[in-house]
């Protein structure tokens, strides 16, 4: 790669002007709400919202000692790992399959990308209708095989349902990146490996998969963040966090405590913790996982 030469602008203010929209968006939609959350997290509001009182780290102490919060943390870990793994594994499988298709390649790809255009809440409703124990088509089929399907009472089944809905939504996105990643691998490498006596499975695991590492790593980060934050709509539509608190993830609890129960201080403290967790996780991913990534 040729080294990039530094661009010099004739006008001193032009670069700042060009950066301004992006900076404004980041400031308004990230820094400002984040600072509000931090401010809110050290205050306690009275039930009628008439006065606020500074409580220091009181909110944090209470949240972290709350068994419901710890439960929610556990739910999030299980939900996120399952969602990210399933979404990525299925997407990779589909991408590898689609890569083998010769005729109608474009049609396959387009069809596989469509689910990404479905809004989270709609996707949630779709899964809800399909699997609702009393009216769901697929739930009916499941029960007719003798399986006791009832995600409204069985917490494991509820978790399975939200994981399925959340990963289904993300598969298209991952698929798109994996397809692009696969296309970037020169065909001659695969041919060379075939001549070198590697069977199809061996070629995939020793050549293709390592060369996809940059894509996989990128998707790992994106999918984790997705599972943590963007799945609110799906959970809200499918289970509402239930049964009990079996599918109440951290971000869902932030919403529930803040906007339903109106415990603003606790909710703000939770969102600050969530922010710290995600920042820490991304840092860890870049620090340790990226080391094993080979950029071609």
């Amino acid at each position, binding site marked *: 790669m040729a080294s990039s030469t530094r661009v010099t602008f004739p006008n001193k203010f032009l670069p700042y002007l060009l950066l301004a929209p992006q900076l404004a968006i980041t400031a308004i939609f990230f820094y400002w709400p984040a600072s509000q959350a931090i401010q809110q997290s050290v205050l306690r509001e009275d039930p009628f919202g008439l006065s606020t009182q500074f409580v220091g780290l009181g909110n944090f102490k209470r949240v972290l000692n709350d068994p419901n919060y710890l439960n929610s943390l556990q739910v999030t870990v299980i939900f996120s790992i399952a969602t990210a793994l399933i979404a990525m594994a299925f997407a990779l499988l589909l991408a590898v399959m689609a890569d083998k298709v010769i005729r109608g390649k474009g049609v396959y790809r387009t069809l596989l990308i469509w689910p990404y255009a479905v809004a989270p809440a709609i996707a949630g409703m779709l899964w809800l209708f399909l699997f609702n124990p009393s009216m769901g088509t697929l739930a009916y089929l499941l029960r007719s095989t003798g399986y006791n399907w009832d995600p409204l009472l069985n917490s494991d089944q509820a978790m399975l349902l939200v994981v399925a809905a959340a990963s289904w939504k993300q598969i298209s996105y991952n698929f798109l990146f994996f397809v692009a990643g696969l296309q970037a691998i020169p065909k001659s490498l695969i041919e060379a490996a075939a001549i*070198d006596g590697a069977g199809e499975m061996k070629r995939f695991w020793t050549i293709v998969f390592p060369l996809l590492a940059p894509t996989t790593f990128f998707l790992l980060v994106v999918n984790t963040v997705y599972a943590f934050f963007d799945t609110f709509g799906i959970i809200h539509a499918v289970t509402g966090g239930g049964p009990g608190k079996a599918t109440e993830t951290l971000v869902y609890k932030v919403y529930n405590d803040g906007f339903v129960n109106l415990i603003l201080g606790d909710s703000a403290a939770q969102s600050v913790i969530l922010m710290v967790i995600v920042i820490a996780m991304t840092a860890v991913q870049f620090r340790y996982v990226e080391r094993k990534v080979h950029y071609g």
Partner: protein
Amino acid sequence: MASVELTDVRKVYGSSVEAVKGVNISIHDGALCVLVGPSGCGKSTLLRMIAGLESITDGTVKIDTTVVNNLGPAERDIAMVFQNYALYPHMKVYDNMAYGLRNRGMPKQEIDKRVRDAAQILELTQLLERRPKELSGGQRQRVAMGRAIVRSPKVFLFDEPLSNLDAKLRGQMRVEIKNLQRQLGVTSVYVTHDQLEAMTLADILVVMNGGVVEQIGAPLDIYEKPASTFVASFIGAPPMNLVPVTADGSGLVLKDGTRIGAQGLAVPASGAIIGFRPEDLEVSAGTNTHVGGLALDLKVLGVEPVGAESYVYGIIGGERVVVRVAGRSTSQTDDHLRVIVPKEKLHLFNDAGKRI
């Protein structure tokens, strides 16, 4: 080590596109066979069919005594060097070379010995721990060679291995490949579009055009006796001059109406094409007709001095030609020169371009 035998090999893509139209080549044990031709002539397709990367529509490919048509690339005991080298970018040089041996379940010590021996031959010992992107073009090329030789296969296949290198390195690597192939004595098939590479490397030269073999033979035989006008213009640089002529009662007529003496040439009634190499022309001072030669009038269009020799570009009978002159040429644009082609240096082709 093995012979390679292609019999009536055809390749049809889809239902109608015929890329290779029935090729017969026989390569004896230890020979280096070069397939040369312009792009799209089917030479790479043919190589890939020998490698097993492309299915064979019709005909047979035999390596040693086995028909390999239905064997996978790994089972044919061949090794291939690709144009872009196809090194595994995430593996070190050592692992790149060892990969094929590991896949075949070879014991570790044996792998190590072979990789180090190959590295020694190719002067890669210092680079074994590097990754491909930390190597120069020539070094990558050598690793690709190393990956082929550690396997000690029956046949080496080269798919334009030098075309990604700069001119100087290309010349150097060409000599190295030739020496290595001699030293190892492995039967090889080498694809290139560069006629110089083809001439210098080949034991057996195969000139291809439009999916068919135009001519097979030793490089110098082909140079001296091209079977068609295509071969005549493809092999040799600058290419052979080709001038169409028609016969009438008393002699030959060029395209622009110039009449020349027949000199005993048997030109068919349908016309013919006479060919002569740029170096076979003699520029004569006088206007006398050379005994036993064809005297032609050349109008100079320009002169290109390239150091040891000069190329004089001009027109004979309405056709563009080039003459190679030793040292410097004093000719000026628009000069008229008398050039003589000795009879034994003349090539005659019929109007379909086939040698008479």
